[in-house]
């Protein structure tokens, strides 16, 4: 059977803030920060949004676009590094909110920015083995950067959901390959509000090594090369890293353009590759091939190669907002409002 | 049914009474009422106390027993009952007392109301008041008590053209009356501008569109009419009593610009009394928000639906108007200690009908109406009074 994506849904909050605005407060040249990171603005969740509400929005969009009975979903996995509860899964609330409860299995995943794609691989296994008919994999985050830290310019919010199945798939996932090592480039201890990172250590030995290895491993496993693909999307903590790694691997600008969202929404962490993939699926046509490599600090990469099927022609994409549509009706914030929204101001009642 | 008279009234000042506890104010008002009625403790057959939320304001339930105890009446083991219907607790307590006397069950009954709202923070007080609305389907979803009334105001303005200025006129009139009431919480006159420039609470309602949180208590003594002259010279008869309920949530009402419960309670009271609105000289109505007074004077039948704002603007509800509304200052200026309000209205009406209202006296007032509402209109109680 051909396992793949049956439906997908995306969500990004409508609030934005620019690196210039953040830089003003910390005495940093925000404009050149923006240029260096290739990020024009990042998304900010409203105080009443969190990874749970974002996951629900994405999952509901995913369900609206197809006619699958939610009771046939056998598994839901939500990958994030900002689950609202450390103990009590995001997935159970998503399950109730899309009416998939109670006959299913749920768990929350964590692997920095590749928790959502790890969930996709798990669903592929469950569907492929016949254990479940449909599985839902969600990557979503409302990640935080410490005030004044480099990450504050990019850490943003958003997510996407994928319904994995073998029936009426709009995109087959033909191969997947992962590359994993113990590399402490970026981490967050339990109880800490903000993550810490190894500065330049997050580059070559972390992001680039694992993304390149993941990509090369997949080329080998699938017997393909960059020119075989219509689209390519890479984990995007900023606009620079994925652009550079794409070039190093041999992809061109046209292939990378659609999935590159960091410049307009920042780094949505577990939502990054899922949202990039959603943007691609928003315009992909039957026969298009997609190459995706997600990266999670700690560290590992998940690489996928996919083929869009004829089913995409009859797919009701219009029933939910596209990534482009989610990037309209925006409201730009000043730093004070951003800090209030993100809980960075100590309130009196606590 | 026996005919029932009010033979004594008493109240405390309303306001932020830092020096007095709930027990203090309850007893103060009760003592004043009993002294006014010229009765002694051993003549009291039963006690009814209106109180909305002592359990949350002062963490005390079992209010009937508490007041009986501190009034010294527990030694005589009198029946003591706490009555609750949110803002209508006082008026409803009066109805229980009236029923007890009218039915022949009891002869001399004391009815009081008290609320101590200022021992908790403003936010806590607001949250407690919101429990008069539908907690699960209004408050939990972000509604505050003023916000619900703002929804009414906005719709009333949309359907009938009621204006921001007309709503302000309610507060201006009530403050004017309150300035002549030594027991009122606010005794200074205000202007339209005071209202329209005060901070927004929930648009279009501003601070001066909303009654304050208050401490206070009020009490009355009831007895069969044919016994009344034994105690005082000018008994005031309760000639009509009506009560009605409606949906708890505002969004379940037939028409949010009409408090159906007020209409039905009034109809029932007028029917019992064999009177009409034309007979009424003074009315104490439930103006916890300026828009509430506009709805009240329409729903009680004094003015056509949609005309309440215009009538207020034209001065028809002033002391000299067609129908003097809220001569005490209303909830807005006299204050609104929730459980006490319904009884404070009776104190004012009785005072007016006895001719003892001083500067705010309405000439030749013979018939008065008290209107008390719970929540956004889920309970309404109306009583009619006539000087004998």
């Amino acid at each position, binding site marked *: 059977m051909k396992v793949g994506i049956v439906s997908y849904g995306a969500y990004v909050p409508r609030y934005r803030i620019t690196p210039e605005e953040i830089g003003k407060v910390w005495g940093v040249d925000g404009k050149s920060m923006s240029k260096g990171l290739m990020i024009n603005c990042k998304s900010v969740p*409203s105080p009443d949004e969190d990874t749970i509400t974002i996951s629900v929005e994405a999952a509901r969009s995913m369900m609206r676009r197809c006619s699958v009975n939610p009771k046939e979903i056998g598994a839901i996995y939500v990958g994030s590094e900002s689950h609202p509860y450390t103990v009590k899964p995001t997935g159970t609330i998503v399950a109730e909110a899309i*009416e998939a409860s109670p006959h299913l299995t749920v768990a929350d995943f964590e692997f920095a920015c590749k928790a959502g794609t790890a969930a996709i691989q798990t669903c592929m296994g469950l569907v492929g083995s016949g254990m479940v008919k449909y599985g839902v994999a969600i990557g979503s985050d409302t990640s935080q950067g410490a005030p004044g830290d480099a990450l504050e310019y990019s850490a943003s919010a958003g997510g996407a959901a994928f319904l994995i199945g073998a029936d009426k798939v709009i995109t087959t996932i033909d191969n997947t390959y992962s590359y994993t090592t113990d590399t402490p480039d970026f981490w967050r201890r339990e109880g800490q509000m903000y993550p810490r990172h190894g500065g330049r250590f997050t580059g070559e030995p972390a992001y680039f090594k694992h993304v390149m290895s993941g990509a090369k491993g997949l080329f080998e496993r699938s017997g393909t090369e960059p020119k075989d693909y219509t689209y390519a999307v890479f984990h995007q903590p900023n606009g620079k890293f994925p652009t550079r790694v794409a070039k190093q691997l041999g992809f061109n600008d046209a292939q990378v353009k659609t999935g590159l969202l960091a410049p307009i929404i920042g780094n949505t962490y577990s939502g990054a590759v899922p949202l990039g993939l959603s943007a691609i699926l928003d315009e992909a046509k039957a026969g298009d091939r997609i190459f995706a490599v997600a990266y999670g600090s700690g560290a590992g990469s998940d690489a996928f190669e996919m083929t869009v099927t004829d089913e995409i022609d009859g797919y009701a994409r219009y029933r939910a907002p596209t990534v482009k549509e989610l990037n309209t009706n925006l409201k730009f914030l000043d730093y004070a409002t951003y800090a209030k929204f993100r809980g960075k101001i100590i309130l009196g009642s606590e | 049914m026996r005919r029932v008279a009010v033979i004594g009234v008493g109240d405390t000042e309303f306001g932020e009474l830092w020096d007095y506890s709930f027990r203090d104010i309850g007893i103060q008002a009760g003592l004043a009422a009993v002294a006014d009625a010229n009765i002694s403790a051993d003549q009291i057959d039963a006690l009814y106390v209106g109180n909305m939320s002592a359990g949350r304001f002062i963490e005390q339930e079992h209010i009937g027993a508490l007041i009986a105890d501190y009034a010294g009446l527990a030694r005589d083991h009198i029946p003591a009952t706490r009555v609750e219907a949110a803002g209508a607790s006082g008026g409803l307590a009066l109805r229980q007392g009236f029923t007890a006397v009218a039915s022949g069950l009891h002869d001399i009954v004391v009815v009081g109301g008290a609320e101590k709202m200022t021992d908790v923070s403003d936010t806590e007080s*607001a949250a407690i008041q919101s429990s008069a609305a539908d907690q699960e389907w209004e408050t939990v979803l972000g509604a505050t008590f003023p916000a619900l009334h703002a929804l009414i105001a906005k*719709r009333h303005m949309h359907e009938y053209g009621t204006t921001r200025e007309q709503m302000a006129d309610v507060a201006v009139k009530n403050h004017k009356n309150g300035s002549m009431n030594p027991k009122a919480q606010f005794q200074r006159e205000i202007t339209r501008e005071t209202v329209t420039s005060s901070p927004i609470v*929930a648009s279009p309602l501003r601070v001066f569109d909303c009654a304050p949180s208050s401490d206070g208590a009020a009490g009355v003594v009831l007895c069969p009419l044919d016994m009344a002259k034994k105690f005082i010279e000018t008994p005031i008869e309760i000639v009509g009593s009506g009560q009605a309920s409606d949906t708890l949530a505002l969004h379940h009402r037939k028409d949010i610009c009409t408090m159906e419960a007020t209409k039905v309670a009034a109809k029932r009271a007028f029917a019992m009394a064999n009177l009409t609105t034309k007979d009424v000289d003074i009315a104490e109505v439930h103006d916890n928000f300026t828009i509430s007074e506009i709805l009240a004077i329409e729903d009680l039948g004094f003015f056509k639906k949609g005309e309440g704002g215009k009538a207020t603007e034209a001065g028809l509800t002033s002391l000299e108007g067609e129908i003097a509304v809220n001569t005490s200052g209303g909830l807005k200026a006299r204050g609104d200690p929730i459980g006490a309000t319904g009884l404070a209205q009776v104190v004012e009406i009785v005072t007016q009908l006895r001719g003892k209202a001083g500067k705010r006296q309405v000439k030749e007032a013979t018939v008065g109406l008290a209107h008390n509402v719970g929540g956004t209109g889920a309970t309404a109680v109306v009583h009619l009074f006539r000087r004998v």
Partner: protein
Amino acid sequence: MATAPRYWRENDSRYNLLGFKCNNCGRNYFPPRAICPVCHRKSVGKIEEIKLKGTGKIFSFTEVHDCPEELATQKPYVLAMVEFDEGPKVTGQIIDCEHCELEIGTPVRATLRKLSEEGPSGIIHYGYKFVPVKPKAP
């Protein structure tokens, strides 16, 4: 004050707009009740669960400035009475818009958001809020 069971019990209605239809008179209601308020006992056994679509329009609205502590970071916020397409009315916040853009009659649709939380260590409550529906571009 821990309120886990009281909120949990209403999740079906607060997340998924579970209401009911009285098959005796045909009226739709939200939230669910034991009996139809019009038909009373004649409705027993004839109550059918329905899920409201979530689309409706603004019946009245206000901008709330004086609000409970848990909504402090959102103030001022818009509270509205919304009339669902199926008939029932509800009370809820309108979000992702400016107060000035709204009118009585503006079409809205329900979405899921955080309603409140019992402090930093307590349960988080979720439920419906409304977003204005943008007219489709021609």
